[in-house]
Every structure is written in C-alpha cells, then in structure tokens.
C-alpha cells in the first residue's frame, strides 16, 4: 500500500509542480470568478430577496458557490487539462513508460483533482470567513467535503473524457450535464422552489447532497445525517473511478 501511495504521489506531484508554476493565473480562474459571483449576486440580488431559510441570501449562496467551485475546478481538470496531458503532451505515455500502471496514473490524477477543489474552495472559504459568511471551527470541515467533491466530479469527468476525440466534445458535458445540475441542486435558490419530481432526481445526483452538507457546516452546525448525504458523492466517486480506470486501460493499453 505504501508503495502504491508513493506511485500516486509521483503523479500528483507532477501536476502540483505545473500548477505551482502558473499558480497566479490558475488562481484567477478558480478563485476570483466565484468570489465575484458570490459578492455580486449575494449582495446585489440579496438586497431584493431578504432572508432565505433563515439565512441572509449571501449566507445561503456561500455554500452553493463553495460546492460549485469545487465541482468546477475538478471538472475542468478532468476534462480539458487531463485530456491535454493524455492526448497533446503525452504525459501519460511518459508515466506508462515508467513503473506506473494505468490505475496509478488515474488515481494520482484524481487525487490531484480533489486537491484542486480544496485549493479553490478553500480560498473562497477564507474570503467568506473574512466577510463573516463562514464561522466556527466546523467550517473547516468544508475542506474534506470539497476534497471528496473534487474526487467525485474529477472521476466523473474522466469517465466522460475517456470517450473524447477532441476538445469540442466537452461542451456537451458542460452544457447538458454540469450547467443544469448547478441550476437544479439548490445552489442559487432553495430546493423547495423546484417541482417534486426534479427534487427527487437531483437528490440522487452528487451536487445537491454536497450543498446540503456544506450549508450547515459553513454556519458551524453539525448533524450526523450529513454523513449519510455524503454517501452519494462517495458512491459516484468510487463507481466513476473504477469505470475510468477500465476505460483508460482499454484506450491506452490496447
């Protein structure tokens, strides 16, 4: 196991080093944009809305922005950046010339995607903290939750990416998958506003439970029920990871 972990870490560290070299620009995309949304929508729209579920609108929105930002950074990494490494830079070929297996590469990549989610959501959390939108030690528990979120959405993106022949393909995933998911998962408005059948479906998709867990955590509240909710993204993560490994074994080692 230690040996396996060392191999995953070698892949992880390669990506971390690339990221570190361009951290300033990378941060702008992963951090500045969601903070702008949070502030503009939260204060702007919030001034018309008043309280939502006993929270100020911006307080309500904070959990949504944290969750979507975790999802987005892992998704972007799993689609565009991982595809670039695999197909354009042939980084994965270089790894497979070393004593690494396809599973090592995929797991190392997914761990990195979880890390990316922690970085972007973590920075937003810090800003939210500064504005008094997050409080208490429990808010720090958001970090492991967004790590799991990154693992989940990173693995799902990789499964989709494994079918890709060009970058164009990813538009389908974003437009038909990610965007509706964000709109229907209780990010911008409470789930009660949605018709019952839609709520039933999104409850079984991985973003909504994440939002439902992060919202109380940001307000320093704990409930054992949260762990039950997290089983959904964890299940998606495990299944997607296994499928992604199978898919890339087929695609790369054929």
């Amino acid at each position, binding site marked *: 196991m230690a040996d396996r972990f*060392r191999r995953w870490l070698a892949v992880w560290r390669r990506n971390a080093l690339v990221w570190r070299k361009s951290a300033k620009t990378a941060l702008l995309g992963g951090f500045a944009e969601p903070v702008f949304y949070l502030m503009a929508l939260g204060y702007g729209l919030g001034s018309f809305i008043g309280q939502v579920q006993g929270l100020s609108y911006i307080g309500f929105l904070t959990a949504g922005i944290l969750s979507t930002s975790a999802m987005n950074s892992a998704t972007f990494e799993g689609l565009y950046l991982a595809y670039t490494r695999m197909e354009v830079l042939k980084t994965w070929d270089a790894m497979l010339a*070393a004593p690494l297996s396809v599973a090592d590469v995929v797991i190392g990549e997914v761990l990195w995607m979880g890390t990316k989610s922690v970085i972007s959501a973590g920075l937003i959390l810090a800003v939210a903290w500064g504005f008094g939108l997050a409080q208490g030690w429990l808010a720090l528990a958001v970090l492991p939750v967004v790590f799991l979120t990154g693992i989940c959405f990173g693995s799902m993106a990789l499964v989709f990416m494994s079918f890709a022949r060009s970058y164009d393909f990813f538009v389908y995933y974003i437009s038909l998958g990610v965007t509706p998911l964000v709109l229907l998962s209780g990010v911008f408005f409470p789930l009660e506003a949605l018709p019952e059948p839609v709520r039933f479906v999104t409850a079984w998709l991985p973003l909504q439970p994440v939002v439902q867990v992060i919202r109380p955590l940001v307000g320093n509240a704990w409930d054992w029920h949260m762990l039950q909710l997290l089983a959904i993204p964890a299940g998606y993560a495990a299944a997607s990871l296994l499928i992604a490994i199978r898919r890339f074994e087929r695609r790369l080692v054929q």
Partner: protein
Amino acid sequence: MSTSSPPIVSAVRLRKCYGSQRVVDDISFNIERGEFCGMLGPNGAGKTTTLRMLVGNTPNSGGELTVLGRPIPADARAMRARIGIVPQADNLDPDFTVVENLRVYGRYFGLGRRAIDQRIPELLKLAALDDRAGFRINQLSGGMKRRLSIARALINRPELLILDEPTTGLDPQIRQNIWHLLRQLQQDGLTLILTTHYMDEAERLCGRIILMDHGRILADQTPQSLVRDHIEPHVLEVHGESVNAWRAAHPLNGPIRCEQLADTWYYYGANLEHLVKSLDGWNGLRYSYRAANLEDVFLKLTGRELRDG
C-alpha cells in the same frame, strides 16, 4: 559474452492482432546482454507494436514473452523499473526545465530525492546539457530534446534501453551526435534495442539487425552478413535521358540482375566491369558504381513499392 546468462528478451511466436489484421505475426527472437539490436523495416512493418509489447504497453495476442526474466505483460510494471524507454515523439514536459523533467521522471521510478539529485549531473554531462540545466524545454533545439529524452530514460540506471526511431526527422549532424551517444552507452555495457527505417543508422550502430516487414521477420543477422547473404556484391545505378538508347546498344550478358525504380536502372552482380566500361562515351548518362549496402538488401527484401504512413 557468456552464453549461460539468460537472454534479456525472449520472444517465442509473438503475435499481435488488431481485429483480423495480424500486425505482428508469430515472430521469435532472443536478445542477449550487451547486444545492440536494430529492428529495421518500412512504415507499418510492426516495429513500434513489437516494442510496445516488449514493455507491456500493449498485451500480446499470442506467444510467449519474457523481458529480464519476467513474464510480460503479467510483470510488466515491475519490469519497467529496470529498463529505459525513449519514445518516437518526445513527450518531455514543456512546463518544466531540463532538471525538473529529470526529477519528476525519476519520481515515477520511486527514486528518492538524494538518488535523483546524484544522478542528474551525470545525465546532464552524458547528454551534453550541463549548461542547459535551468532551460525550459521550448528553449532547447530538436537534438537537445532528443538527448534529454535519452538521458531521462537512463535515470533509473536501466539494464536495457529501448528506442523507437530515435533520429527520425533530425538533421544529419544531430543524428551523428545521437549515434555517438548511443555507441557510448553500448560501450558502457548497456543492452540496446532500436527501431529505424534508416539503413545507414542500422548499419552504423547495430551488431545485429532484425529486418521486419508485414509483421514478420525477413532476416535476423549482422549487417555484414545480411549484405553478403542477400545481395550481389556490386551495384551500378544508371539514369539520364539516353539510358534507353544505351540499354538497347548493350544487351546484358552474364549473371547480372537488373531492376528499374522510377527513372533509374539498377544492375546487381559480382562483376560489372564490362557494363561500367560500356558507359564510356555516352552523353546524357549519370551513374554510380559502388559496393552493395544494406539499403539494397532492404529494397530487395521488402520490395520497391512506395509506402506512406
């Protein structure tokens, strides 16, 4: 070379099928420690596929394969810790400097920081990149990138180095430079396998040539014996506007083989002196009279049709 030590590579009836196409068709060979073996063949012969099977990057459809005593593909991942691979197209990390490329790659092999930092100066020296350590990859010339790819493949002190078309697309001087590096590695005791479709490369470097076409081995011997066994010792090439008139005036006699490729006529034989003499006095003819080489063998055994891709 001791014959008792086990072979570095042993392939028995190795086969690879893609759909109904047999890309590698029941080939068998051993490679012994210290050999410099060239796999020579036209495009599509199955060279890259053979190498990919050797390193476990694609499973064989049939046959038995062991590399460094380990069954492949079963133990391929562990086996790769003891070999080096230089891919046909460089896949260096463009975001990194020369040293960072080596360091990151060394970590894929599970090497610790100290082992890597010790190894890097040796590799930079070997690849003559000492003064480029902090350069980014896009600041390197094509030849430097290739040398770095070779150096990178040596990070783990491999027992076997596998190179897929290491000099394709490089300038002549740079090719010489790479050849020099590879010869040096062989002198240091490394076993090398390379693929190439350049005859001169195979002839200069390799003590042994496996000539492949259509997934089969056509010949497996030293370059000298290949030329001796498969082709007449001398070649005369003739072309030019009056070539047909000259041919009409001098019908062939004696054991001379004649072939046409595009606008050039090739004559092969042990003794072509009289044919060369007959060229005297003809205007508008160009010719060259030379010893047969590997290129002639290659063209004879793989045929003369043009192959692309």
